[in-house]
């Protein structure tokens, strides 16, 4: 119950202000189609440099939590999921809104998100210290395999093509090696002056997540279809609350599925929402009503995608393996503040760790309150024209990446990586494994070098890296994640026959 003693930190004036600002801002950003939670968190990182690590993490955590929930507003009112995590919400939510139950759908969505989110953070609170203590037994070889596992799991599970996913991870690992070598001071892969200091993680994160979205927005051209929001008649919150308690089965299914999915690195909220929706339908006596504007669909999907948030941070805070792309960006935020996940975090920075986790718990409650009362307003902001949104994100990305080290070199790197990623994404490559490679590369290399030195003094590298129960277990996980992804990839695209491509 150590976490209870750090609750005071959340209610310090600046921390509370950041929590409220992050939650409200996150709800608005989440409700904006085209702005993903990952991009929102990446764009916020430069602002955290001027804050203490705790305050910075509170802001990022609040934004992470509320962007996922905020995406439900446009999913329900405009049938445009604010984030991939809200795809399942749109299935029944929009039908409810069209039937005149928009406020009811929004209330149920935020109440279910809040419930799922609180349970998810409680899992984070009780599971993290246990795993962090377990992580103490890890030596350099284990940490090396953990870093490789992080890249392969996200590379293979979070991509449309597992070869391209793993290749994206390799590109990220290579990018992480650009600059001066830490031990020998040798220059590595420096092809331009802007790369002398290596690739700045924050500039890279902003470029990889923001610029492709700007280009995707303008790729639709001048005459992008306009959307019309549905008007929301008023509804008593107590009635919605009563309805939520009457649908406890869907709420439980969503929360359990979301928590389990969150714990699996790389799987993410989109899958959590869809799996929970599917399971809730299977177990419901009203399964025929799913897809016609049934509240159980909204409850299951929204409780799942927010229950995923807390558990997705468990592997991140204990083993440096992010559970979702947004968690990968949070890892970047931790590392630039000189905080390394694992036992170090809980032993040397308990104030930072527990205040951050507690703030996520308080943030869930704030998210429900603000979500319910600002949903209609957020939907109006979601109708900001695409060209304004694209121009605003571009300018923010340039200012954000420049402000990291006040260097134009970072802006060039940000733009180059962003434009490159836009084209790569169109060919099935994914930004998440690339980012993971970039973030986990230095961790993998440092432990590989340290392990090699130990191996030289002992039994040789093969024995050091490939024997021992934990090493073999981790290697097996790496192989299994790749094999599973290879198999599911084959099942998804059975016998893709070579054919003369048609013009595109």
């Amino acid at each position: 119950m150590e976490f209870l003693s750090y609750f005071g930190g959340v209610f310090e004036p600046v921390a509370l202000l950041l929590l409220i600002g992050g939650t409200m801002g996150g709800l608005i950003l989440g409700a904006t189609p085209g702005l993903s939670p990952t991009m929102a968190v990446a764009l916020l990182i430069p602002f955290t440099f001027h804050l203490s690590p705790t305050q910075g993490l509170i802001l990022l955590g609040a934004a992470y939590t509320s962007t996922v929930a905020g995406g439900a507003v446009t999913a329900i009112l405009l049938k445009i999921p604010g984030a991939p995590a809200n795809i399942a919400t749109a299935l029944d939510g929009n039908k409810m809104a069209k039937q005149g139950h928009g406020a009811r759908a929004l209330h149920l969505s935020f109440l279910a998100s809040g419930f799922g989110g609180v349970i998810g953070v409680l899992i984070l609170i009780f599971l993290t210290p246990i795993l962090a203590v377990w992580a103490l037994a890890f030596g350099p070889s284990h940490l090396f395999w953990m870093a490789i596992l992080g890249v392969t799991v996200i590379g293979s599970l979070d991509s449309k093509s597992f070869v391209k996913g793993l290749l994206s991870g390799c590109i990220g690992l290579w990018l992480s090696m650009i600059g001066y070598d830490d031990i020998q001071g040798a220059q590595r892969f420096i092809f331009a002056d802007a790369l002398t200091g290596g690739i700045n993680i924050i500039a890279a994160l902003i470029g990889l997540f923001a610029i492709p979205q700007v280009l995707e927005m303008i790729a639709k051209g001048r005459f992008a279809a306009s959307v019309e929001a549905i008007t929301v008649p008023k509804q008593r919150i107590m009635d919605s609350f009563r309805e939520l308690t009457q649908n406890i089965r869907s709420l439980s299914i969503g929360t359990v599925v979301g928590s389990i999915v969150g714990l699996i690195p790389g799987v993410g909220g989109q899958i959590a929402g869809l799996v929970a929706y599917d399971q809730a339908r299977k177990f419901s006596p009203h399964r025929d009503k799913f897809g016609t504007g049934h509240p159980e669909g909204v409850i299951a999907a929204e409780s799942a995608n927010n229950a995923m948030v807390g558990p997705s941070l468990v592997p991140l805070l204990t083993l440096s393996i992010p559970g979702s792309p947004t968690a990968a960006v949070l890892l970047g935020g931790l590392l630039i503040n000189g905080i390394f996940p694992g036992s170090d975090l809980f032993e040397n920075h308990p104030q930072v760790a527990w205040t951050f986790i507690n703030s996520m718990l308080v943030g869930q409650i704030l998210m429900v309150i603000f979500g319910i009362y600002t949903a209609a307003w957020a939907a109006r902001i979601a109708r900001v024209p695409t060209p304004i949104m694209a121009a605003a994100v571009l300018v923010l990305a340039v200012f954000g990446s420049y402000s990291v080290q006040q260097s134009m070199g970072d802006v060039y790197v940000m733009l180059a990586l962003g434009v490159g990623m836009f084209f790569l994404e169109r060919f099935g490559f994914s930004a998440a494994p690339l980012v993971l490679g970039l973030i986990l590369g230095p961790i993998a290399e440092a432990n590989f070098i340290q392990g090699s030195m130990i191996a030289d003094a002992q039994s040789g590298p093969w024995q050091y890296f490939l024997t021992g129960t934990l090493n073999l277990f981790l290697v097996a996980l790496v192989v299994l994640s790749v094999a599973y992804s290879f198999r599911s990839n084959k099942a998804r695209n059975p016998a893709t026959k070579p054919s003369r491509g048609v013009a595109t």
Partner: protein
Amino acid sequence: MISSRSQHLIPASAIFAVSAVVAWLSFTQEPADAFLFPRVISVFFLGLAGWNFTRAALGLARVGDGVPRRVLKNIAPGLSVMLIFVFFLAGGLGFYVGSALAFAAIYTLYDPAPVSDLRAWRKRIVVTVLFMTVIYGLFALLLKVQTPRGFFF
């Protein structure tokens, strides 16, 4: 018209070429100890890139929508604005003036309202000034970021 297979061959070839250069540099550059980890990674990088290239050449790597001509045509003006902004305007005119021009240019280029519409122009100017005021307040006044000063600021 670009065929889908040849389109997928372009990134596959580019990545294969990059991986080959990375592998070559990793195995030829000195000191060898500094390139120990790059060597290990470059082997996997080259292997996966070769696999991806072979699949692309056989027409098996067609995942994703590719880049249709319509998309290229749509992004070309915006991409040009981005490049001119970052490489010339930001340093030449100053960060804030360059940003305002880039913002206004992208807004105007992709705004569905006709270019001859005076009300639309008024709206574009007001939105640009308001947005840049928020950016100035955030970065110059609150975060105290020293941005490059060009001809203006």
